[in-house]
């Protein structure tokens, strides 16, 4: 059993668990599945700075902070007790492309060439952590939600604006991964 759990899970298994989060949260307390809102609650709690967008009773949304804390704990548990010792299986074409970008480690879930504290104070670190994170936070709030709130919750509820948002996420991603990233990697 444990050995099976340690293998990478099939997409249908993970997709089902993620999809079932929608009705689970609704039934547990009429909560709408969404994650990027937690970033807004942190702003409202820590630095509202008299900005109308952050002047609300964030304590009413505290469940969302418990939920994201759970995601963090889940990440810890899975990587500590259910970790897959084998290198990650990536499509050969992507492997070759990444090799051109100077990424050749496939041992863990993330390339050590980027995601380590050694890169933090370099230009690479600035781009991948600071700029990338800023775009994620700014963009999701501007769009009114992220992959969870729009692509999963919104589409589940057949909301067409969420479909527009999801298509925009994907278009931005395609452009970034195929046009911007190859240029960026020439800088480092």
């Amino acid at each position: 059993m444990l050995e099976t759990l340690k293998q990478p899970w099939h997409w249908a298994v993970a997709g089902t668990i993620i999809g079932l989060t929608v009705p689970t949260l609704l039934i547990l307390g009429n909560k709408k599945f969404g994650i990027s809102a937690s970033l807004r609650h942190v702003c409202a709690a820590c630095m509202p700075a008299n900005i109308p967008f952050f002047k609300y009773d964030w304590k009413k949304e505290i469940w969302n902070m418990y939920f994201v804390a759970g995601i963090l704990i889940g990440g810890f548990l899975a990587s500590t007790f259910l970790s897959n010792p084998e290198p990650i299986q990536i499509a050969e074409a992507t492997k070759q492309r990444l090799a051109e970008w100077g990424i050749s480690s496939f041992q863990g879930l993330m390339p050590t060439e980027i995601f380590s504290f050694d890169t933090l104070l370099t230009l690479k670190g600035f781009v991948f952590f600071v700029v990338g994170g800023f775009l994620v936070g700014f963009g999701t709030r501007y769009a009114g939600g992220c992959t969870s709130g729009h692509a999963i919750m919104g589409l589940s509820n057949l909301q067409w604006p969420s479909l527009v948002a999801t298509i925009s996420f994907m278009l931005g991603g395609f452009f970034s991964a195929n046009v911007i990233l190859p240029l960026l990697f020439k800088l480092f």
Partner: protein
Amino acid sequence: MATIQTKEPQMEDVRHQDAMCTTESQLKHPWWYNFKYMAVGIIFGIAFVKAEIISWYRIQEMFQLTSFHMYGVIGTAVVVGMISVMIIKKTQAKTIYGEPITLDTKKFNKGQIIGGLIFGLGWAITGACPGPLYAQIGAGFGVVFVTLLSAILGTWVYGYFREKLPH
């Protein structure tokens, strides 16, 4: 079971400004009732790691169209979510506390396109949408905490300039 009153529209409540993730309940629960949401988050986070959704490599595959994996995950999640929501609507299911389940209608605004494109740019760079950011930190990639802080800053800057941005 508490009686449920009809909801009055609360125009002054800015939580509704983007009609996302707002919760209205007439019930008052002790704080530790929130641990059930943490439990859901834990299972969700484990699935994130074990299906490698939090992996930067998998996000590159998705955007390079070299693997079906991420499309399979998101597609399955949407179908399961749709069927669940349909059943909830059909049966008019209630929460475990007997409150009616409400679903928000999303209004279209230009932000969904402009903001969506901006988020997409960041998604391919960081290899994470907001959910995986938390799971990556938990999975031991401590440096992603910087990405999370920057995402919070991005959210704050959006809030600051919100009135001046096209919507």
